[in-house]
């Protein structure tokens, strides 16, 4: 049965206007070739024959181009969003070329309020819009064919970018129909395909970017090459907030290829003919900093500061029942404090940006999650009007929230503006680790009350930590509550008769920002570990206890049901088994971990993940995101942390900020729940579940709780 829906903002005139304002779209950037055309990596586009909307252009020669307005950073969004368009357009993925979209209001991600990628929002945001864009185009193609042949539209069917008449003899390709379609009125409503007619959505499709990535042909930010381009590094003061008081550039200037050394907003720039000269100059530069503040910043002192916030009064984010009274009346009350440290993003591609600022315009080639904000910053720095600032989003060598920031954009635009030449700024790995916007350090005090049967009746949780939104979006802080800092803690699905959640803001000088899973990544550690502590105190099985607390939530019970068989299986000798439940980005995940202790170190051996992310678009890519989230989470659970002494980050590279290695990869089994609900986000959901699942497994194995990350035996 068809599902007619009204279009929203998809009139051709409006969309064409927007595209024209943004600089024409098709003339911008390089085209990402897909399977249809992988033999060339860049090509100027011919003028399009027909652009029915901001995402699709059809060419007379049959080419179909789609504009991708979200950043491909490994999460598979290029393929997933193309599948949404192609499903309704009735075109094969092999018939489509993809190019990065320019900045334009039509590409706004409504879940983030700007044209940006992150937080598991892309598929959710595009689910209706992109399918409608595809369907509208398909309807125009059918209308054009019907008019050409003088037959009713009901006798025409579209398949693989071709409209066929029911007589089985006549057919016309979309390219042949484009000119006629351009003269037709835009349909006032679109009809989306019924789920039973889908051929792409819900099937595992090969990622469109993989052929490029196995040939070393995918172009990341550092692979941008512009004529006359210079390379630059920037030496920053290691102490947070310090200013440069002097520098000795003599040795740096002696490096062959170094052109100039001078002060910029964020430090001392070394400008050179080559990347290597810029890096070598950076290494030889001596800078003196005037650390007026923050010289005493040290992890131990930051921890003490946060500890103060565990006591005294704090704003209440959520109150149900009367926790204090219920705790006083409980048969047993327990309390625990959990700690999560600062964490870096450590994207494999170090931060970078390439800018070409000219008097008449500016081109910025950058691996960014935030192209609209990139354009705004460049506007502010150059004074150029936005329509003359073109942002070209490259492939991202990892994002994880780090590439929502603009510091690296600032570096490149400032330098190119000053030098009048294209400049590529490259950060060293040490720059990247030492000048991040970290996942914040947090402390959590939890109190729980059990009745005489071991059933939890009261739940108290106080989150103490700096506010991420204080810098990024202070208007969203209400009554002292930063909603990002209570992610997951506020929406805890368990039914407690009495519950209170508090957030005590404790800002520190450390720059903090978005990080895969955001607040979930520390809150789920505290809440899911404490639940297991309550289970243990009450003599209850952790899965059974969760089932009883989720009795009114069939969606969560369904997850646990699918995990029950794995949970009930005998635990192999030497292993501990734990579980955790996370709800984030419109999805739910139950994760089972099996861990061992080998040679004094924790070893995660196996995970079973049960995911309900609504309608799955590309199942294999969803499984890849579960694997990815687990690996990202395991690094934060078992490896290092960002620590401070004398006002500076102590870690400088992968030696002291290690990542999970190949031989430490656990087995991962993913179970996807069938669902007709709209898609939920996937990239952020597995990461927060890992630390509690592993800690709970260790609690089961060793009989003692692990309340501090990263876990140390």
């Amino acid at each position, binding site marked *: 049965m068809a599902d007619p829906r009204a279009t929203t903002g998809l009139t051709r005139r409006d969309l064409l206007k927007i595209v024209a304002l943004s600089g024409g779209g098709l003339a911008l950037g390089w085209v990402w070739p897909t399977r249809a055309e992988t033999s060339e990596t860049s090509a100027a586009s011919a003028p399009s024959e027909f652009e029915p909307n901001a995402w699709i252009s059809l060419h007379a020669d049959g080419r179909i181009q789609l504009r991708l307005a979200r950043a491909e950073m490994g999460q598979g969004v290029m393929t997933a969003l193309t599948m949404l368009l192609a499903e309704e357009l009735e075109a094969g993925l092999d018939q489509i070329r993809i190019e990065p979209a320019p900045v334009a209001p039509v590409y706004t991600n409504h879940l983030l309020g700007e044209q940006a990628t992150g937080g598991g929002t892309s598929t959710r945001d595009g689910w209706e819009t992109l399918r409608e864009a595809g369907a509208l185009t398909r309807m125009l193609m059918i209308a054009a064919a019907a008019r050409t042949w003088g037959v009713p539209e009901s006798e025409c069917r579209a398949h693989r970018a071709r409209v066929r008449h029911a007589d089985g003899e006549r057919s016309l390709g979309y390219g042949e129909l484009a000119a006629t379609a351009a003269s037709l009125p835009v349909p006032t409503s679109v009809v989306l395909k019924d789920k039973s007619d889908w051929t792409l959505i819900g099937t595992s499709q090969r990622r469109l970017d993989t052929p490029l990535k*196995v040939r070393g042909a995918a172009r990341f930010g550092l692979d941008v090459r512009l004529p006359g381009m210079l390379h630059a590094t920037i030496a920053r003061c290691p102490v947070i907030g310090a200013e440069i008081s002097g520098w000795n550039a003599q040795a740096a200037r002696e490096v062959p290829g170094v052109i100039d050394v001078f002060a910029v907003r964020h430090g001392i720039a070394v400008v050179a003919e080559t990347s290597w000269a810029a890096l070598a100059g950076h290494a030889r530069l001596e800078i003196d900093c005037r650390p007026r503040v923050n010289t005493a910043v040290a992890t131990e002192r930051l921890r003490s500061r946060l500890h103060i916030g565990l006591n005294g009064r704090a704003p209440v984010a959520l109150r149900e029942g009367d926790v204090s009274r219920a705790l006083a009346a409980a048969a047993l009350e327990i309390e625990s404090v959990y700690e999560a440290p600062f964490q870096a993003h450590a994207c494999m591609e170090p931060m970078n940006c390439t800018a070409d600022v000219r008097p008449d315009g500016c081109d910025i080639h950058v691996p960014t999650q935030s192209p609209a904000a990139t354009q705004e910053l460049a506007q502010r720095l150059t004074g150029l009007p936005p329509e003359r600032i073109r942002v070209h989003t490259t492939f991202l060598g990892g994002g994880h929230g780090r590439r929502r920031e603009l510091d690296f954009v600032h570096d490149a635009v400032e330098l190119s503006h000053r030098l009048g030449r294209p400049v590529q700024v490259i950060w060293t790995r040490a720059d990247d680790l030492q000048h991040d916007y970290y996942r914040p350090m947090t402390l959590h005090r939890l109190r729980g009350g059990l009745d005489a049967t071991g059933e939890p009746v009261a739940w108290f949780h106080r989150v103490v930590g700096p506010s991420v939104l204080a810098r990024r979006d202070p208007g969203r802080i209400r009554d002292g509550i930063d909603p990002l800092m209570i992610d997951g803690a506020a929406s805890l699905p368990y039914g407690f008769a009495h519950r209170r959640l508090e957030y005590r803001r404790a800002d520190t000088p450390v720059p903090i920002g978005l990080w895969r899973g955001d607040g979930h990544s520390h809150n789920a550690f505290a809440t899911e570990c404490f639940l297991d502590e309550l289970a243990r105190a009450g003599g209850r099985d952790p899965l059974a206890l969760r089932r009883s607390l989720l009795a009114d939530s069939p969606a969560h019970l369904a997850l646990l049901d699918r995990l029950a068989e794995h949970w009930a299986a005998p635990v192999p000798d030497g292993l501990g088994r734990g579980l955790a439940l996370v709800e984030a980005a419109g999805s739910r995940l139950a994760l089972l971990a099996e861990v061992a202790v080998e040679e004094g170190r924790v070893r995660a051996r196996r995970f079973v993940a049960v995911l309900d992310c609504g309608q799955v678009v590309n199942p294999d890519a969803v499984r890849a995101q579960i694997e990815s989230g687990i*690996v990202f989470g395991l690094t934060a659970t078992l490896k290092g942390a960002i620590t401070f002494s004398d006002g500076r980050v102590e870690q400088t590279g992968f030696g002291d900020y290690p990542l999970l290695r190949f031989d430490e*990869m656990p087995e991962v089994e993913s179970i996807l729940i069938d669902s007709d609900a709209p898609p939920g986000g996937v990239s952020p959901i597995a990461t927060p579940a890992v630390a509690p699942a592993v800690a709970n497994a260790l609690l089961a194995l060793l009989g003692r709780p692990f309340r501090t990350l990263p876990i140390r035996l």
Partner: protein
Amino acid sequence: MIHFTLNGEPQALALDPATPLLWVLRDHLGLIGTKYGCGEGACGACVVRLDGEPVKSCSTPLSAVEGRSVQTIEGLSPDGRHPLQLAWVLEEAPQCGYCQSGQIMTAAALLAQHPRPTDAQIDAAMSGVLCRCGSYARIRRAIHRAATPEVQGG
């Protein structure tokens, strides 16, 4: 002048012999498939093959390749259809993809030494190349797949 063979072609370069091979490739030869990840040999994103062996090109000076043979991701196959590349596609190994050139070149060296590698041999060979996206399990499957004759036929 440093003479060496690059992806089967002779090269003669008059560059500072201390220049790391990574930057010779990226800055001077336009071979940008080999990636910069850390510059200190700790991540493996820059692995290329030197006389068949995997080396971290960020820590290999140009002088070390004199008279030797260098292979980069661009030279692994003429058409992107090396058994490893085919297997990588079939297993959907890459995510962000930034480390994958290093992963594939490391695996190519492994297969040259052990055409049918065991899991232990794969662990030993691959654990020096970091992936933040967690593609390790798929890479393992892809290596095993590439080591089987049916995929080698293409």
